[in-house]
């Protein structure tokens, strides 16, 4: 399969970015999206090496000054099996590309048509500044967790299973919420760059279980305040986050967060 790639290139956080176009041919339909970018990077490295050898030979270093960025395309990735939340590209208008419930590393080239133009952009949000090319700084999500996304009480050693009875439904909902990998696709998809699904999931997976329930409202309050402080937008119930979440986390978690916010304002934790 052959593709025309339009990739956002940006030297550093403060540089002005732009799209560069690359033609890439003979890609297997079974190739993953990140493998396709690896192949592109191999080609860029080879081309860059040849160019520099040629430039040295001809002693015309000046000619390279106006040429496009020659370093390989920088993009985040780690496990490449959809569990670490490291990869994240905005592909043809959708975070993680044209499929549901997957991360970018799980996207395969068979999901595209031969000859397609593919536009690849970094996550766009004020709290996610671009570091280089397609790599963004998502530490804002860590800061939200640091603000209160934990249980502060000392709960002692790990209790035996079933010592504390937990309804199956609650355990399932907590598990579903806990599957959030913090990739930031919800922020990237939201027209307001809101992190409500992320915060909702992080609040829910603790609030649904006995150990986390005690501080639930206070936790919601701290995390939402941090989210606002970091410059994330607010939720307007568009649910693009739910549609694009690679872990299929539901909007009900946002609803639970809202409920706990109200509790924090008017309830016992609002003191």
């Amino acid at each position: 399969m052959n593709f025309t790639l339009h990739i956002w290139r940006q030297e550093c956080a403060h540089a002005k970015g732009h799209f560069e176009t690359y033609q890439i041919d003979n890609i297997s339909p079974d190739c993953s999206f990140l493998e396709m970018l690896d192949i592109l990077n191999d080609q860029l490295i080879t081309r860059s090496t040849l160019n520099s050898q040629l430039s040295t030979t001809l002693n015309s270093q000046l000619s390279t000054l106006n040429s496009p960025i020659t370093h390989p395309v920088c993009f985040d990735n780690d496990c490449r099996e959809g569990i670490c939340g490291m990869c994240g590209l905005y592909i043809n208008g959708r975070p993680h590309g044209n499929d549901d419930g997957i991360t970018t590393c799980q996207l395969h080239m068979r999901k595209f048509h031969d000859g397609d133009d593919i536009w690849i952009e970094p996550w766009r949000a004020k709290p996610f500044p671009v570091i280089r090319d397609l790599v963004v700084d998502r530490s804002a999500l860590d800061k939200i967790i640091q603000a209160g996304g934990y249980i502060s009480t000392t709960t002692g050693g790990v209790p035996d299973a079933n010592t504390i009875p937990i309804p199956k439904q609650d355990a399932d909902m907590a598990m579903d919420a806990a599957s959030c990998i913090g990739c930031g696709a919800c922020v990237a998809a939201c027209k307001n760059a809101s992190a409500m699904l992320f915060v909702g999931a992080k609040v829910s997976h603790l609030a649904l279980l006995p150990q986390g329930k005690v501080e639930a409202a206070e936790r919601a309050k701290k995390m939402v305040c941090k989210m606002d402080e970091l410059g994330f937008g607010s939720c307007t119930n568009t649910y693009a986050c739910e549609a694009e979440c690679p872990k299929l986390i539901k909007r009900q978690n946002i609803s639970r967060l809202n409920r706990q916010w109200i509790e924090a304002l008017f309830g016992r934790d609002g003191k």
Partner: protein
Amino acid sequence: MNLPKIHSISKKILVGALGAFLSFFLLFHASANLLILRPDGGEWYNAFCHFMGTYVIVKILEIGLFGALLLHAVLAIWLAITNKMARPKGYHKPQRSKTHAGSKLQVWTGILIFVCLIMHFTDFYFVKIGWVKGKYMVQTEELMKVKATQPEAVSYAEQKGELSAKGTWLANFDKEDKVALEAAGLEVEPDFYHQAREKFKILHIVISYLVFFVVVWFHLRHGFAAIFQTFGLYNYKYGKAIEVLGQIYTWVVCLMFTAVVLLVYFGL
């Protein structure tokens, strides 16, 4: 002096609460409009309008309604501006996520509703406060009171006006008639029954109102379920039911409004 900081969720809760109040008012308004379809010469509908225009509590609620409408719009625009700031640089490719158009365009449908409301107020509400001319009516009871002192005015009114089914109202007066009747010391009220029936006979006004109702449908379609979501009531158990209820509510309200306009236009 620093203004108190309102957190994003608190702003949403305020917008939602005001939206809930406005949504409820829409159902009330649409239900009342059905009285226009009664072939009673405006007997019931004008009695209802008379009650709405004279009862003190309703007048206070009217101020509350306008306040809610304004605050709902101001808060929503404030949210939209802060949300825009959360993504200073947008995407090159437009978003293709699977979301309902109503939710993506909520701010725009809200602005369109405001524009349509100006048209609606020009047709009806501004007549009530005397900014534009329309149709007027007098209570026959009022007329009888001045019959002895103003026989000419009464006979003029009886000649020009249309009597409602039970004879409570003498209606369908124009601006000139209103001036003459007021000069005779009669209390003249807007006649929204004949006003509506006259307006909804004009094609371009009918089309404008149909567009208005489509915009309201989009706004309400998203807004209804969003209110429950904002108040944390949208859960796994009742989520689907809320969606269905929202659809029913939206369709019922919009169809009630549409039915009145179309049925009057087709002379039914």
